[in-house]
């Protein structure tokens, strides 16, 4: 993979409650860090366009809270919040991450902005607890193993639906 490849790499090592995300950005770490942390910027990119951001707040201090709420076209809302555990711009940010649909599960996210030639390599590591952990773990098994050939799977689905 070349450094300018902007493919999103999602890796979930089998047996670990972890999900690693890597993505190259053609901008310096200072900017990537700010765009990923400052709510004024986060509201401009976080989530697909089909979801409206109704809340995007962050108290940018260690111990401070962040809160984001998405609203789907059908009116359903999805909230996320967490606390900042470490703020070390422009390189590193650590915080908790709670999906309000499953408030008992607290994940910890470490975001690192590595300076690389021509830009920044974002390396985010999300450590989940039990249920999420399993889901993500298995997602890796699916991504790397049996679901290698999506096209084959589509064929099988078509076949199964025909019978």
């Amino acid at each position, binding site marked *: 993979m070349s450094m300018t490849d902007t493919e*999103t790499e999602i890796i979930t090592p089998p047996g670990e409650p972890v999900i690693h995300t890597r993505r190259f950005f053609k*901008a310096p770490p200072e900017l990537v860090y700010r765009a990923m942390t400052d709510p004024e*910027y986060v509201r401009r990119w976080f989530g697909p366009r089909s979801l409206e951001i109704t809340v995007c707040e962050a108290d940018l201090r260690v111990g401070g809270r962040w809160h984001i709420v998405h609203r789907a076209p059908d009116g359903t809302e999805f909230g996320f919040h967490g606390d900042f555990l470490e703020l070390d711009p422009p390189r590193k940010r650590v915080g908790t991450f709670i999906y309000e649909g499953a408030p008992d599960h607290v994940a910890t996210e470490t975001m690192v902005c590595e300076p690389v030639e021509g830009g920044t390599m974002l390396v985010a590591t999300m450590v989940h607890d039990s249920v*999420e952990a*399993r889901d993500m773990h298995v*997602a890796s098994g699916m991504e790397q*193993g049996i679901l290698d050939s999506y096209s084959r799977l589509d064929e*099988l689905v078509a076949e199964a639906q025909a019978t």
Partner: protein
Amino acid sequence: MSPLATPDLTERELDQAFGALSDPTRRAILARLAEGEAGVLEVAAPFPMSQPAVTKHLNVLEDAGLISRHRRARQRLCRLEPVRLKQLSDWVGSYREFWEESFERLDELLEDLQSAHEIDQSKKQKQKQKQNKTKGEAR
């Protein structure tokens, strides 16, 4: 952390299916069955474990809706149930889509910010030059 729904699957079905997939033997069994249906003995052959142990794995996969078992003549055959697998892959896919679309939007934002930053910098530089010039003139 995908907020993008779990289409057609209940939380329990998701848990069960992901639980079933969280074991390397069961994933290997599914990989084998993705090539086509197979007899129980054939499925068990590559694994260094007893037939009952393999049967336990097959039960877990069947309960999770990932495979089905039927008889043909005297043979007991296992078959992949691709619809459930597709539902799961859609569910995982939504996680990837969520981030891919977010990051594309972030690319655009960074580009905007960078050009704004460059304009800002050149303004500052011009201002500096102007200041230096005035300083020079004052001397």
